């Protein structure tokens, strides 16, 4: 039976005021990444210079690519009198240097507090300039409101809304909307779709823009990304598959397309873990009327084979899982299906449908001990819960590195940001093959720790018990 202390009623410590060691980032950051998934686009952060520089730095450290994010560089005067002039100058300069097809303007807590009316400023800019090549899309992303996760969803929805048209004829292409995942996972999902032979538009597709093959030069706006023509077509799509189980309806791009354009929404968890990948395959089978391609069947077979091989090791794991809601849900379900009962499941975000989704998942899983679920979490909460519940491994981004440093709880790195290891963008978990890659990393992290310590631990534990008997004549427990 579930321990009542460990159910979702124990989710947040409402009395706590300070956020200590952050597990999430600010809302415009997510918006910047979404715009990197649109072809020919440039993100412009309307606020202080520091905001865009911090977002660039965070992305650069994760993706290891030169990533440009422009800023309207507001100073004190403009903060008092309004940022219109600077924003227009920024638009001019970004257009001159980058000549982008799209400029996404993300607001910040500063400009939201100033009450900047972006729609009016953009209308006035367009009136001044006449016909321009560049589409300008404003997105409201105040970081006192939500986290980078919701910034990503909001920008994705607003990008679709900017191009969607009622007069798009219905067609056979399907829409695929991804949450903030690694470029490797985007590529894996595209490969699966290609293997099925479906015609699709995936948004936002930053798989090439944020992970460039070496070409001997630096592209100011890297090639790749979803084209605006394809985005416009999404409002006439056959169906939308959105990996957004935890996405609130109010900012859900798939929900927006369904409500406003009648495109049916299939809202799925990320295809990470066998159960979740099966759901994706089932959806594709229903949409296409085909059966699953043979090589995907092999991949599924290799995954099951490996799950059997490693299940007893995995049974010893008590993972603490943290990060963005969609990833956290997917890794929790992957762990559960491998017999690794999570100790803590945590997200920095509070605006998601993670908790009810986890409740359903845990109800089905019949585990002996229920994980602690934390929303709006910081790492002081995650660390405390991990220690209390006996976590012996973690899954998440670099923000949790003190778990290893202070408690030797090793982290299977996944999510964003990963700045203390190489290859954050290459971390693969999606699809059957991706799941297997991830599972091996997970199991081997357990094994590495076990092999590095079990001789000494067993020796200490058991010899000290013998010593106790020698001393007292009894086994003392």
């Amino acid at each position, binding site marked *: 039976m579930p321990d009542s202390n460990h159910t979702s009623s124990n989710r947040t410590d409402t009395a706590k005021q*300070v956020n200590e060691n952050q597990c999430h980032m*600010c809302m415009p950051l997510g918006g910047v990444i979404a715009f990197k998934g649109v072809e020919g686009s440039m993100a412009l952060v309307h606020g202080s210079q*520091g905001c865009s520089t911090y977002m660039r*730095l965070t992305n650069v450290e994760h993706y290891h690519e030169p990533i*440009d994010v422009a800023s309207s560089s507001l100073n004190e005067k403009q903060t008092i009198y309004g940022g219109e002039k600077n924003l227009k100058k920024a638009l001019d300069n970004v257009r001159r240097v980058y000549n982008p097809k799209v400029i996404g303007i993300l607001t910040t*807590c500063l400009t939201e507090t100033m009450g900047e009316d972006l729609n009016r400023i953009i209308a006035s800019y367009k009136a001044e300039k006449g016909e321009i090549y560049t589409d300008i899309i404003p997105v409201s992303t105040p970081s006192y409101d939500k986290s980078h996760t919701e910034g990503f969803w909001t920008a994705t929805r607003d990008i679709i809304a900017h191009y969607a048209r009622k007069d798009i004829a219905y067609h056979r292409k399907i829409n695929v909307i991804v949450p903030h995942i690694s470029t490797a996972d985007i590529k894996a999902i595209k490969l699966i779709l290609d293997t099925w032979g479906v015609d699709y538009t995936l948004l936002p597709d930053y798989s090439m823009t944020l992970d460039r093959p070496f070409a001997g030069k630096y592209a100011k706006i890297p090639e790749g990304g979803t084209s605006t023509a394809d985005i416009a077509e999404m409002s006439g799509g056959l169906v939308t598959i959105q990996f957004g189980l935890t996405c609130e309806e109010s900012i859900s791009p798939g929900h927006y397309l369904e409500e406003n354009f009648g495109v049916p929404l299939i809202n799925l968890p990320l295809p990470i873990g066998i159960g979740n990948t099966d759901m994706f395959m089932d959806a594709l089978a229903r949409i296409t009327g085909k059966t699953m391609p043979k090589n995907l069947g092999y991949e599924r077979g290799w995954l099951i084979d490996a799950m059997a091989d490693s299940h007893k090791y995995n049974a010893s794991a008590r993972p603490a899982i943290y990060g963005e809601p969609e990833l956290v849900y997917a890794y929790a379900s992957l762990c559960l299906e491998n017999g690794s009962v999570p100790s803590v499941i945590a997200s920095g975000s509070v605006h998601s449908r993670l908790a009810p989704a986890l409740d359903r998942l845990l109800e089905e899983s019949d585990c002996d001990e229920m994980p602690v679920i934390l929303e709006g979490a910081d790492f002081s909460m995650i660390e405390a819960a991990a220690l209390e519940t006996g976590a012996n491994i973690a899954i998440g981004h670099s923000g949790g590195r003190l778990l290893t440093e202070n408690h030797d709880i090793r982290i299977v790195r996944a999510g964003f940001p990963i700045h203390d290891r190489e290859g954050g963008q290459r971390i693969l978990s999606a699809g059957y093959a991706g799941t297997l890659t991830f599972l091996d990393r997970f199991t081997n992290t357990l094994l590495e720790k076990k092999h590095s310590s079990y001789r000494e631990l067993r020796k200490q534990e058991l010899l000290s018990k013998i010593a106790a008997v020698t001393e007292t004549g009894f086994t003392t427990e």
Partner: protein
Amino acid sequence: MQEVCPLTTETDSLIAERRESIVTSGKHKTSISCTSDSLAGSVSQRACVFCGARVVLNPVTDAVHLVHGPIGCASYTYDIRGSLSSGTETYRKSFSTDMKERDVIFGGEKKLAACIDELVEKYNPPAIFVYSTCVVGMIGDDIVAVCREASQAYDIDVIPVESSGFISGNKVVGYRAAGEALYKLITPKDGEFVDKTRKLNFLGEYNLGGEKWVVERYLKEMGIEINVAMTGDATVEALKKSSGSFLNLVQCTGSMHWLANRMEEDFSIPYIDINFFGADNTAESLRKIAEFYDDPEITARTEALINREIAAVREVNEKYRKKLAGKRAAIYVGGAFKAFAIIRQLQDLGMEIVLTGTQTGKKEEYERMGRLLSEGTVIIDDANPAEIEKFLIEKKVDVMAGGVKERFLAYKLGVGFIDHNHDRKDGLIGFEGAVRFIREVHATTCSPVWKYLREERGGTE
């Protein structure tokens, strides 16, 4: 697929208003335009006032660093520096008041006060630095009053740092805000008395990868003790004793001159500029310090130390100079102090500096820089990636020294890269740092990978 970069040819990578921020050294005595605000839309490498203040103060190990604002500013600066501590590690924690919409509407003072209460109860710190951010400055929270009340209530130093980001995009303004905060902390309060000592303070040293400890060892061998560095491995207690020191060393000129001047005026502590990056700089700096103490014993020990250490660096220098001489280098770093040190070290290796610049250099610093460089070297203030790219290609650069944001731009062009930034884990200071620097320059400039990157075999199209 198409041509990799279809757009660059249609665009003008140099914005007209940026032209005055780019000069070449030599006969043309055009003066560089610098220290103004960044140009909107030009993708400056600069940050903000908050960033500057936070990097300067953050290494104070036993203080609580509380960022008053929405989550982002704290999140982006969570444990970002490689500063080491010999004691507590409170400074590595990132605290945010995590302001929400209601705090923005109704004011964040209550929340700030509650956060301070919570932190005092949990950590009982000797001092709390409260950093203001954009929104806080905008809505006018009176953080000075909240800090004053908390100081009185708990009898500890709760110090406001005026670091609202929009005040300036120039980190130097943030350094000043940090200097003012430190000045508040170190000034003895009524009735407090600080003993005068023969020790020195080491301003502008952040103990990245243990760099303060390297210099501490040299000075100890010379017979001189450090009271405290500002702010690497500093404790609040040691900082509070700094007004009784004999001498201030000023290293990172961008961040600490203001404070050094104040300390000279108020506490009669003279200061000297030193630079421990590079073997020659280190030797000169140690001699300068010994000269100040004017003690034959110290002078003798100093010369012995220098002679022993510099020989080891020379040996390494000669070994790698053969491979590195004639290679073309670019430098783009935060402040001029760092640029000077790197220019000298690379020139020592026989390398040619073809491009240099800083985020925050001052006019006289750029003029001095121009004199160090051969004719035709490009000097840029507050460069953007487009400009850096243009000159890396035009000047056929082999290796670049800079910060994280430039690293991957260099790699994309097949250019080596030397990390001289805040998050490096290994020290570059002193004689041993000079050796490490030379090895790093060699490892990246002469790496075998560039051969493959320059090979044309297709496969990327």
